[in-house]
């Protein structure tokens, strides 16, 4: 292990960090919206929507992300109809192809996580809310969603970490994110260990920050699990 070389590599890889973060953040953000839509479609009770969501999840969860990225980038561009369509300015760019593939993929997994969260809310609470005169949207906003979010968060945290690592596949469609730059440095220097160790450390650091953020969100969303605040002095006197 050559420390000097590892340090140089570290700085080169750091220049690719913004792209990795951008890919992960964009695809997670867009994917979560799609995932919520899919989870609601699954639970809508509408057969057509339900079947669509089931088929979607089956397709995207059942095929490797690598294959999806290849098909979206190299596959779609084979059809002149796609190249002449209004989507081409976006599909022409490797960045948007990668975002599209990552987003479609994470939506499939995340929709199942969100569905699990939504189903965890006891039906009695929904009935009680209805009895209080709340409308469907208000029940969803005030009763179902906050609890579903709480239930889904640990699983969703896992999915976000997977997505950060999955951005490494974008290097196969010419995007020079961390793994892409690492592969380039390796093919120029033929030194595998230093480069991959440094790349691994960077991913580890990103995911450390991410897990802290998820843990913080869990802490905020679960007041019932926190120890109660100490009772103040004035109240102590009056208690008995």
């Amino acid at each position, binding site marked *: 292990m050559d420390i000097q070389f590892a340090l140089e590599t570290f700085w080169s890889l750091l220049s690719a960090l913004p792209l990795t973060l951008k890919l992960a953040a964009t695809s997670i953000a867009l994917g979560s919206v799609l995932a919520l839509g899919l989870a609601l479609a699954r639970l809508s009770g509408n057969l057509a929507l339900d079947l669509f969501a089931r088929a979607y999840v089956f397709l995207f969860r059942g095929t490797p992300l690598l294959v999806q990225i290849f098909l979206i980038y*190299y596959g779609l561009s084979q059809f002149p109809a796609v*190249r002449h369509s209004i989507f081409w300015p976006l599909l022409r760019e*490797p960045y948007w192809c990668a975002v599209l593939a990552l987003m479609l993929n994470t939506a499939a997994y995340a929709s199942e996580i969100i569905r699990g969260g939504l189903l965890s809310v006891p039906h009695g609470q929904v009935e009680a809310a209805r009895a209080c005169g709340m409308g469907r949207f208000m029940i969803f906003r005030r009763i179902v969603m906050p609890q579903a979010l709480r239930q889904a968060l640990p699983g969703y945290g896992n999915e976000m970490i997977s997505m950060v690592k999955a951005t490494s596949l974008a290097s196969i469609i010419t995007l020079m994110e961390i793994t*892409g730059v690492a*592969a380039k440095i390796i093919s120029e220097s*033929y030194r595998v260990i230093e480069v991959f160790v440094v790349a691994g450390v960077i991913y580890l650091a990103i995911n450390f920050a991410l897990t802290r953020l998820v843990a913080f969100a869990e802490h905020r969303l679960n007041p019932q699990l926190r120890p109660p605040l100490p009772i103040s002095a004035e109240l102590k006197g009056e208690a008995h």
Partner: protein
Amino acid sequence: MKKTTAIIASALAVAAGLMSMPAKAEDKKWTKVTIATEGAFPPYNLTKADGTLDGYEIELSKYLCDHMKVECTIIAQSFDGLIPALNAGKFDAIMAGMSATEKRKEVIDFSMSYGSTGQAFATLKGGELETLPMKGELFSLASNEAGARKAVDELKPLVEGKTIGVQTASIAARFIDEYLKDVVEVREYKTTEQHDLDLVAGRVDFVMASMGYLKTAVEKPANSDMVIVGPRFQGGFLGAGSSVGLRKSDPELKALFDDAIAAAKADGTIKRLSEKWFGFDLTPQ
């Protein structure tokens, strides 16, 4: 006391064993050689529809192995991992259209060249770059560096702002890095077939790759819009041509390959096979 003597004796035995090892390696008789190729770089090496390997190097390797009187196994793996895997002992030789560049020579050894084509550009028919000047002219970075640089300067204004596709870590990538980096946007691909796909899709304006490769690429039905344009470059860091990559610790295997390649040159095998696969003679001068 007895125990100490026994330890010293065994230590000496181990040391003697270690010392005799290099001597053994020197007169190692090669009977089996595993050769690695890429299987995705036609016509040098390619994978047929049924999964078997074929191509110029595959046929040439059969001749070379017969001449060296060794039993050869050919395996395929991705190009960018070839050199580390060779040094890790996963196989004994590389025949993957690999040019013997100075940089690679720092890490591995090369046999003499078994074919030289030069690097050329390709673009789409009807595109802006189809009329790139100096078509077919050959510039050597070794013997005529000034001429090559002049040719590049003439190309620069024409390709300014264009996007070029090259294979990662290839000598074409190095060429662009040294000569055209400041005027073109570079996209790097794992395989040359991928940059062809993107050329046809219109994501890159032109590509640079070995002339031998481009010549077969433009003949594929899917690449019917692709044309070879502009000058060719060879020599210098572009390498003397494709050579067999070998570990530095196997000089006797290098001697075997050199001898076999010299024989293939002398009896016209290289000329015959390269004309069959490339359509022109690759015999290195």
